[in-house]
């Protein structure tokens, strides 16, 4: 595209051919008022507010800058007496139409229009008939749910067959784009559809906040760029929209971009796939997902975060500050029905919550625990400090959280029913909020990852290390290490320590430059192998593969650890361990016995 030079208000302005005078003026920082213009929509030219005076080919005339294409040598005046007269005239007409719309009132103030000389219209009228909503719906959303009906002075925005009371049109997705783009708040979604919009919940904020279909996953995400949610994006679901493209000045939005699979050849892999939080909704008696103000620990963590959905304010669903909060320990942990193991971090993070609650609010805090396990450095001291801060520690695992009040004091509260084991009494405690200190469990895809990396898992489902004491970061497969919660629940210091160890192990391999493989590996005598593949199933290192052509099994010597499981398992005695053949062993035995 070539560039043209024009003059706007005496200023030389360069603009790309095919753009409009309005765009050129905006680019040059010259303000022209608009009402029906929107950068993402086709110019409509209906409000006439953006009129400017142009001199083209020696002729002066008024044109709408929103759709007048730039020309070489065009002279534009955005504030000539004619322009101002027309603009004022239009503002007078609009003010008479919508006397109580702030946007118009502000324009009137700016242009010195006090009282329109005409009879004022309906004082509740908000619609200025700019058509942004209709164009947004048609051009970008591809739905065409609303448009102008009737003509002349009776023109208005309507849904089809409005008045028949049928608002349940399938075409409307209740996306809200019309209301979003309306400059005067004349449109509400209820006017258009019977459907309720379904906001997209932010994954990072644990569903406590909503997000747009194009979003930065979380602050300081790496890379720190927005992503498009293909499932929700109107463009990817209907082929329309692309509004974001119009707003991105560097034109960085690329709808063609696809997920990439990058293959990297490495000698070592450290698996640090982490954990998942236990889902407390399965413990129905705690009411999570059913009762308001019952939160998981991670949800509370987001809430109390100053960059979180409530900017760090601890609030109830109705927005008010809680007067009392109960923290229930061991949710999903140390529980035969869910996980027998202790998740190790819950006691301490619960106490951190107690501290933060005290810091942020004046609420009473109750910690319901089985045992306090403050095992780390400085942890016990922190526990003592909590006791001093006035956190109430109650020994007893609650049986139920309910909203059914039995006394007037319990009305409108969450009641924690528990046995105080220190006094040996059943009690009910009304609180405003309950935080469930959920345990840690192996991540959802743990099985898949285990298979992929050939890592064994312990009874609790976490990855199994080679040796709990002597080789805690290695796995049975050389070059594959584990670190962090994928190996088992642990807190941050432990995770960092383990990760450092894993990195050191990997580095030692790298610095050696070579890998020593086992000398004594299994060897299959193909003439004896029947192709039953029993050995393949038995091999703990996935070192045996099946040759479909010859219908015999093969051993990958690099993977084989020479454990001998296959040798013992082979029904046709086709497998021998090199250096340890049956004959050799028998000979050794004979030698030893003789």
């Amino acid at each position, binding site marked *: 595209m070539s560039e043209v030079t024009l003059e706007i208000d005496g200023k030389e302005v360069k603009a790309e051919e095919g753009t409009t005078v309005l765009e050129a003026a905006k680019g040059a920082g010259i303000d022209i008022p608009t009402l029906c213009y929107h950068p993402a929509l086709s110019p409509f030219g*209906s409000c006439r507010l953006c009129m400017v005076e142009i001199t083209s080919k020696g002729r002066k005339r008024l*044109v709408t800058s929103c759709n007048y*294409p730039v020309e070489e040598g065009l002279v534009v005046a955005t504030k000539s007496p004619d322009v101002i007269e*027309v603009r004022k005239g239009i503002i007078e*007409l609009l003010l008479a139409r919508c006397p109580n719309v702030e946007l118009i009132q502000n324009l009137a103030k700016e242009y010195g229009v006090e009282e329109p000389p005409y009879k004022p219209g309906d004082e509740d009228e908000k619609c200025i*008939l700019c058509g942004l909503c209709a164009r947004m719906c048609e051009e970008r959303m591809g739905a065409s749910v609303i448009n102008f009906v009737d003509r*002349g002075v009776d*023109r208005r925005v309507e849904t089809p067959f409005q008045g028949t009371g049928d608002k349940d049109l399938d075409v409307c997705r209740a996306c809200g784009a019309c209301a979003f783009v309306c400059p005067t708040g004349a449109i509400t979604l209820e006017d258009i559809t019977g459907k309720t919009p379904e906001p997209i919940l932010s994954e990072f904020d644990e569903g406590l906040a909503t997000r747009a279909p194009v979003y930065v996953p979380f602050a300081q995400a790496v890379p720190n760029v927005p992503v498009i949610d293909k499932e929700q994006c109107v463009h990817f679901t209907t082929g329309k929209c692309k509004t974001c493209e119009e707003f991105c000045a560097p034109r960085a939005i690329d709808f063609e971009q696809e997920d990439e699979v990058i293959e990297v050849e490495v000698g070592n892999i450290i698996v640090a796939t982490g954990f998942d939080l236990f889902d407390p909704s399965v413990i129905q008696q705690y009411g999570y997902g059913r009762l308001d103000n019952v939160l998981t620990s991670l949800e509370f963590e987001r809430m109390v975060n100053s960059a979180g959905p409530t900017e760090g304010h601890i609030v109830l669903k109705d927005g008010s500050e809680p007067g009392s909060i109960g923290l229930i320990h061991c949710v999903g942990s140390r529980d035969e029905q869910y996980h027998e193991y202790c998740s190790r971090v819950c006691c301490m993070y619960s106490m951190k919550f107690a501290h933060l609650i005290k810091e942020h609010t004046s609420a009473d805090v109750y910690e319901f625990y089985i045992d306090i396990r403050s095992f780390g450095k400085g942890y016990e001291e922190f526990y003592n400090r909590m006791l001093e801060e006035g956190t109430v520690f109650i020994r007893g695992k609650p049986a139920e959280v309910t909203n059914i009040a039995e006394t007037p004091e319990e009305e409108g509260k969450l009641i924690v029913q528990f046995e105080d084991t220190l006094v040996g009494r059943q009690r009910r405690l009304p609180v405003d909020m309950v935080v469930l200190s959920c345990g840690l469990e192996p991540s959802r895809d743990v099985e898949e990852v285990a298979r992929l990396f050939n890592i064994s898992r312990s009874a609790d489902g976490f990855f199994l290390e080679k040796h709990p004491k002597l080789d805690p970061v290695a796995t049975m497969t050389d070059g594959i290490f584990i670190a962090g919660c994928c190996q088992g629940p642990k807190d941050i210091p432990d995770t960092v320590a383990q990760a450092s160890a894993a990195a050191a192990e990997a580095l030692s391999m790298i610095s050696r430059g070579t890998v020593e493989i086992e000398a004594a590996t299994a060897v299959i005598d193909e003439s004896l192998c029947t192709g039953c593949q029993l050995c393949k199933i038995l091999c703990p290192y996935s070192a045996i593969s099946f040759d479909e052509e010859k219908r015999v099994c093969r051993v990958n010597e690099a993977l084989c650890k020479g454990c001998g499981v296959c040798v013992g398992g082979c029904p046709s005695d086709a497998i021998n361990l090199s250096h340890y053949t049956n004959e050799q062993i028998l000979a050794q035995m004979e030698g030893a016995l003789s």
Partner: protein
Amino acid sequence: MARVNSPKELEGLRQQILSERDPNKPCIAICAGIGCLACGAAKVVTVFKQEVEKQGLKLDVDIKETGCPGFCERGPIVVIYPEEICYLQVQPEDVPEIISQTIKEKKVIDRLLYIDPTTGEKSTYESEIPFYKNQHRLLIGQNIKIDPRSIDDYIALGGYKALAKALCAMTPEQVMEEVDKANLRGRGGGGFPAGAKWKTTRDAPGEPKYVIVNADEGDPGAFMDRSLLEGNPHSVIEGLVIGAYAIGSHEGFVYVRQEYPLAVENINIAIKQAGEYGLLGKNILGSGFDFVIDVHRGAGAFVSGESSALMTAIEGRVGEPRPKYIRTAVSGVWDKPSNLNNVETWANVPLIIDRGADWFRSIGTEGSKGTKIFSLVGKVNNTGLVEVPMGVTLRSIIYDIGGGIPGGKKFKAVQTGGPSGGMIPEQYLDASVDFDELTKLDSMMGSGGMIVMDEDTCVVDVARYFIDFLCDESCGKCVPCREGLKHMREILNDIVGGRGKQGDIELLEGLSRVMKKASLCALGQTAPNPVLTTINYFRDEYEAHIEEKRCPALVCKELISYHIDPDKCKACMICGRECPVSAISGGKGLIHIIDQEKCTRCGTCFDVCPTRFRAVKKISGEPVPAPVPEAERVLVRGNK
């Protein structure tokens, strides 16, 4: 029908049609145009057919339903060929007499002839009637000779000769040059030179190119295009094909209002017939040029007559105008170059090609060439369609052709150009009618509507009428037009309703300025014209309404009162009986009195009071005289 494959074959066809027709065979041509149909022409045709059969003349007499010759005031019109005797206002009862007297006996029936109301002179032939005598009917003159549903009728009169000439003897450039040289200006109202527009479309990048007939005639009281499309559709088709050839278009649209059912029907028949002769479709007349026409029916929106709105409507969207900073000739229907011209413009094209640009230039004024059809309506004796050379005076049209104002009333103004035009007062009656002169008078030629108003017309009320019309017909897209018209109507309603305030005139003028400058399309830009011209020429009437609460023309209901002159009332009780709200008291021998409280100012009493008494008075701006005291109400009849 056999395909016509060359100009020679077309001429052959014409000769064959002519040879099959006996020029001396009596032919009864009955106008089947919409005006005459409204006066009962359909019945007249049926009776003619029955009568001819009854009298055993079926094979000896032809009956033809033709297009509109224009003299709608005197319909149904019947012309008897070969003598060309012109009968007006023919009723079914007249039919037997016409058959027996005129057809059989060759006698002229005097009472059906045109009789000049002033001289009493009778006119036997169309050409002698003053209404026609002063016209120059190039376009509508043949209507009465043609059955619009018969292509043979059109070909017999030399139809499609111009097409043959253009396609086979001229290059597209030559055609374009000829039209350009003729300085044919758009008849739709704008007066833009057709040649220049064609050239823009031809030179614009993009294929296909479209040509469009704008037959969305919507001005109140205008029916020029309707009569052409209904009465001589082939002339429009021929012009369109020639234009398409010059422009390089192979697809055309006829955008015609759904409210013109006969026009829709006739143009469709004409397209079908032309297609059968190979005058449309592939390889027209063996020239290698292809062209098809699609008829698009308008859904009844005045604004769709605006070119960009019309094109939006063709695309299947709501007919709303869009800015024309890039002309529709460059980016029109589906953003393709699209050349739109009015029905009448297209109908002029065959004439120019056939007779040459020089001949065409010999008609009209310096800047406006050729003829223009006007629909002359309102307070004028001879209403109907009038085709005159550009440059004749308004006076000539209204008085020489229109026969002046009926009832001896005084001429007040003429509205030209429909709702977008303006009202021209008496002092400019000698202005010549062409594109430029009317614009100088703040009015416009428009598509040719001409509404004559007499002294009984209130100009403020008429301006209000047009603004009211436009309030409904504006598309409502842009603020100045939609909101401006609304307030303009409100102010005018206040003025005619006696609620006008000081400053209203200035407010109207200011609002008009904004609307003229800021509106998106020509509808809004010209909408204030009726108001502005009336303020300009009849400011005193506005002032009378506002300041004295007086309607000088005694029209505006809220400003007038009726009362009965006790000196003239003969107590006949007619008005009392007719009054719909029983506002008149009185009885036999008792002078009637109108109860001003009850009176709705419907004017019935005024209309029914016998002219020999004229006792009911209409007044405005003055108090109603006090009713006669009861004691004096008894009417003492003269010596009886």
